[in-house]
Every structure is written in C-alpha cells, then in structure tokens.
C-alpha cells in the first residue's frame, strides 16, 4: 500500500474532489455539537477537533431506520440503496469500532442487509490522533491513537502536510483516482510520521489494567461489587447511545390502521423495558442487573462470541455520564486494582 503526501493547502481541493464523486461525511459543528454530517463544501468541516460527540455508528446503524413498509396487508420491501460514501476525519478508535460492528451484523448465519450495504459503499479516511484526551484509553484494549484497524486510508497530520497511507484496496483505489493531487512521501516525511506516532503514544495518559479481565468476570456474576457499582447509576442511555460499539436495537411497528412501517430503533440494556416479557417477567429488574449486563457484554460475553472486547477506549461514556460513573474505575474494581483509600460507591 502506498504512502503519499497531501499538502494542507490542497486539503480543500482534496475534499472538493471527493464531494464531486461521493457523499462525504465529516465532523461538523452542528447546534453546538461536533457530529459526523454530510458536507457539501470543504469549508463545513470543523477546524480542530479531538473527536465527535456521537460515534460514527449512526452512519451505518442509524437511531431509527425503516426496515420495510406495509400498506393494505402487503409488505413493501425497502431496498437499502445507498450512494457511495466517504467518511473523512474519523479517529482510529471509532474506525476500529466498525470492525467490531461487522462481527455482529455480518455473520455466517445471518446478514444484516442495511448495515452491510452501507459498509460496502463507504470508504473510511481516518486521521491519527496526535493529542489524545484525558479520557482516552484505546491502548488498554489493543487499540492505538495511530491504529490502522478499520480505516481504508489513514492520515497523519505532519503540520504542513498530511501523510496519506492507504490501508485497503478500497483506500488505494480512492487515492489512485486523485491522480496528481498527492505526491510521493519522502524519507523525511516518514521520519516525521514516526515521531508523531511516538509522541501520540507518549501522550496517552490513561491506561487501565485489562489482563485477564474476561477470566475474572467469568467468576463474578454473583460478585458483591455489582451491589456497589450501580448505586449512583441513573439508568439513562447515554453510555450506550454514545458508545461506538453498542449496537442493541428494538424493532417496533409504527402504524395507523395497519399502514406504516417496521422500524428498528436504538435500544439500551440500561432501560427497564429492554428485557421485560409480555407476561411482565423481567430477568433484569434493577440497575444492578442492567449495569452488570453492560459490563459483562463488553468485556466478557463479546470475547466469548467474537474474540474481541467491545470497548475501543474512546472515552465518550466517561465524558458524558451525568454522574461521572467512569468505566475505567469499574474495570479497575473488577481487576482488584482500584486506588487505595477510595471506596467506589
């Protein structure tokens, strides 16, 4: 795969050319929140940013989506017809999350046509992080601020230039289509890139103990720690909705007089209705069981089912939790490595 240079004065031209061919999504400041939105001009792209408020999952698995419509007793199939898209400016943690979502929605047995169609038609251009936030802990779960996982192209911000590295054939194809806009990277550029990688890794301030986490959790279903951890949890859905890997959904009919649509909506294991049965029986009655499920799902069950921890360490749940229930502290508690002299509750 190739390594090229995009000078920053050509960044706008770069985006303009992409916009001509693709639907381009990029971080945009929208009503005070930095979100991935479709851009029609390069100027819409946010100038400097760490990461978006919402993860990119909504571009593949939107909050609400019609699976099909029905009218007069007939099912009207929706064909997931998406345009070719580019997502520009994703962070490596979020790019990795896409590979985790692939494991859920694209299985040997069943294929989710909506998610897969969008994935296939999307080229992901990520930008390596030079300045991780204090809530970033991607390295604790095998990620890195400069990881290539999940990206088709990875950019390194070298100051005046971007080093553009193609990761996949899809990314290479996009780079090839840009012709003379990019120039070949020189040795000095690669050296700068290596320095950037070094500083980025050194900048990672947050590291949590994750060794043997799954094995510990296997024996902790009835552990008294769950009695403590959930106490301050409000049971809202912020942590799950802002999580790039949380993918639980609900399927409901939206209809009047049996005309309408079957819709898939985001759902959260933190909600009481998540597991309630028609008979009224609910196996996860309180926040205790729900929070345990969330932790177990991320750090234990997912490892059994997919061989992967479903946490990429983006820190969104930490920054946005209304009661500062920090997932890193929970992991520390599970690992028995919580700071001395501090009760968790």
């Amino acid at each position, binding site marked *: 795969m190739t390594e090229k240079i995009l000078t920053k004065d050509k960044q706008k031209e770069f985006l303009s050319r992409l916009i001509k061919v693709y639907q381009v999504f990029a971080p945009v400041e929208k009503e005070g929140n930095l979100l991935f939105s479709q851009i029609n001009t390069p100027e819409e792209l946010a100038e400097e940013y760490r990461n978006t408020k919402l993860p990119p999952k909504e571009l593949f698995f939107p909050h609400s989506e019609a*699976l*099909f419509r*029905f009218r007069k*007793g*007939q*099912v009207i*199939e929706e064909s997931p017809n998406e345009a070719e898209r580019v997502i520009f400016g994703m962070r490596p943690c979020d790019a990795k999350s896409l590979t985790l979502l692939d494991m*859920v*929605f694209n*299985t040997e*047995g*069943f*294929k*989710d*046509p909506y998610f*897969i169609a969008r994935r296939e038609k999307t080229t992901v251009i990520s930008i390596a992080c030079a300045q991780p936030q204090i809530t970033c802990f991607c390295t604790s779960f095998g990620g890195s601020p400069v990881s290539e996982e999940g990206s088709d192209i990875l950019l390194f911000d070298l100051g005046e230039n971007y080093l553009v590295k193609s990761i996949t054939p899809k990314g290479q194809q996009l780079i090839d289509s840009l012709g003379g806009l990019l120039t070949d990277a020189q040795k000095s550029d690669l050296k700068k890139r290596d320095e950037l990688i070094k500083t980025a890794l050194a900048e990672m301030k947050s590291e949590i103990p994750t060794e043997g986490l799954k094995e510990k959790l296997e024996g902790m*279903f*009835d552990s008294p720690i769950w009695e403590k951890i959930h106490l301050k949890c409000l049971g809202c859905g912020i942590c799950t909705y802002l999580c790039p890997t949380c*993918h*639980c*959904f*609900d*399927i*409901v*009919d939206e*209809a*009047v*007089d*049996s*005309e*309408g649509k*079957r819709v*898939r909506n985001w*759902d959260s*294991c933190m909600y009481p209705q*998540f*597991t*309630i*049965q*028609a*008979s*009224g029986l609910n*196996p*996860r009655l309180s926040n205790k*069981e729900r929070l345990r*499920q969330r932790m*177990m*799902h991320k750090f*234990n*069950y997912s490892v*059994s*089912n997919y061989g992967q921890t479903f946490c990429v360490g983006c820190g969104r749940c930490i920054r946005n939790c209304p009661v500062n229930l920090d997932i890193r502290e929970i992991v520390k508690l599970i690992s028995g490595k919580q700071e001395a002299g501090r009760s968790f509750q």
Partner: protein
Amino acid sequence: MTNPYQPHLAKITRIIDENKARDLKTFELAFCDSQQAERFSFVCGQFAQVSVLGAGEAPFGIASSPTDQGFLQFTVKRYPTGTVTTALHNCQEGDLIGVRGPYGNGYPMQLLEGSNVMIVGGGFAFTTLKSLTNYILHPDNRGRFGELTVLSAARDPGEMIYKYVLKKWSERDDIRLILTIDKEAEGWKEKVGFAAPVLKQIDPSSKNAVAVVCGPAIMIKTCVAVLLELGFAADRILTSLEMRMKCGIGMCGRCNIGDKYVCRDGPVFTYQQLQEMPKEY
C-alpha cells in the same frame, strides 16, 4: 442477500380456542407463497417471529410438527400488556399475518433418536412438545425412537390444552400418556397433583432415556430434581427457555443469558448447559 427481517405473509386458516379462559388460541397458518412454504423447513423446538403488521412481531415456538404438511401452528397466550399477543388474538380466520424464521436450534434429534423419550409439559408451554410428540409418532419416524411417555400437566381441566390431540394420542398404543391437574375437579378421571410428584409416580426409567421438560420455572425446577433423582444425566435433560427477543438472529443483543443467545444458541438447552449459565432467566 436475503433480508432476514422480511416477514412472509401467511393466511390464518383456522383458530382454535385452547382453554376456558379463552386467552390461549392456536393459530393455523398457510404461507401465501407456496415456495416459501417449502423453504420454511424446521425441526421441532424451533421458533419463528410472528407479526401482525402494524402491531409488531414476537417469537413463538412452532406447535405443529415438521411432518404436518401444508400448515404451521402457533399457540399464543394473550397478555393485556402484550401488544402482539393482543393483536393476534384480535385476528380472525382469513387474516394475513407475517412469519419469519425458523430460528433457534430446536430439539437435538441425534440425542433423541434411539432413546426412550420422557416428555413433561406444563400449561401452555406444551407447544413445541406437541410438535415433538407428533413428530415421533409419525409412521416415518416412530421406529427411530424408543418408548415414548408424555406427561401433560395443567392447573385445571379447562386449562388443559390440545385436548383434541391428547385424545388421539390416548387411543394409540405406542405412546404412554399421563394427564394431571393441580386439584381435584368434577368429572376428572385422570391424575391429580403437580407435575413433579406425578412424574415420580410414573417413575420413568432413566436407562437410555432422554427427558424434555417445558413449563413454568417452578415446574421445570421440581421436575428436573425428580429426573436427577431417577438417574437421568444432566446432559440428557432438555428444556426450552424464553427471553424477550427482537431480531431472533443474534444481533439485537437482549436475549442473552451469559454469553449464550437464547435465539441463536437456544432456545433448547440441556440441564447441564443451564448449570453453566448465570441464573438470569
């Protein structure tokens, strides 16, 4: 790519009231598309997502047997808080509903074939057990199974479901059928008592036998205790679990018990598997 969320339309050809309280009905369906009818091949113990367009969908065990040609059956209990069960109960013969599936693992035929089979069912959980019993009793299959004993338990005679089927079974000599109700009732000539003590009375031999138990949680618990006492091995006691489900295909993330998804890895589990799973059901 086939769309797993797409329901296939089926016509309700018959509705049978199953109990006195009239909150249990069996819906007999025929797919509108005959090709779909052929594609829908299932094993006993699997379930399907049944939907009333406009009300939503919910998972129900398939009550008919794979040997039943040309129709599918689901037995549904109506709950006042259940949107889909209420909508289904409001349906009439001739109405169109949606079906997608089949899903889940079903009963392990490899284990059951060549064994004596003890089936214990309580209340309306008898649905997939009816499927299994009819499958075993079918002339094409009967020879592949050993002795068949079926115990059906209900609260009272009015709650005993599938009476018309039980009657047919009782007339055969290749099945031992025992019916029981919780308390004495006028005109009741069969057994009286909870499933577990009656099971103990029956005293089925555990030799080369497999037991299948479905019913309310407390019934499963007590019956499994009796079976273990009788020498049934934990991996030769089967049950079928219920959890809230949405997708049925292991994606929506809610029906898991530990790392097992009831929709994908179940709903049929051995008692041994259950012991290894967290008690969250």
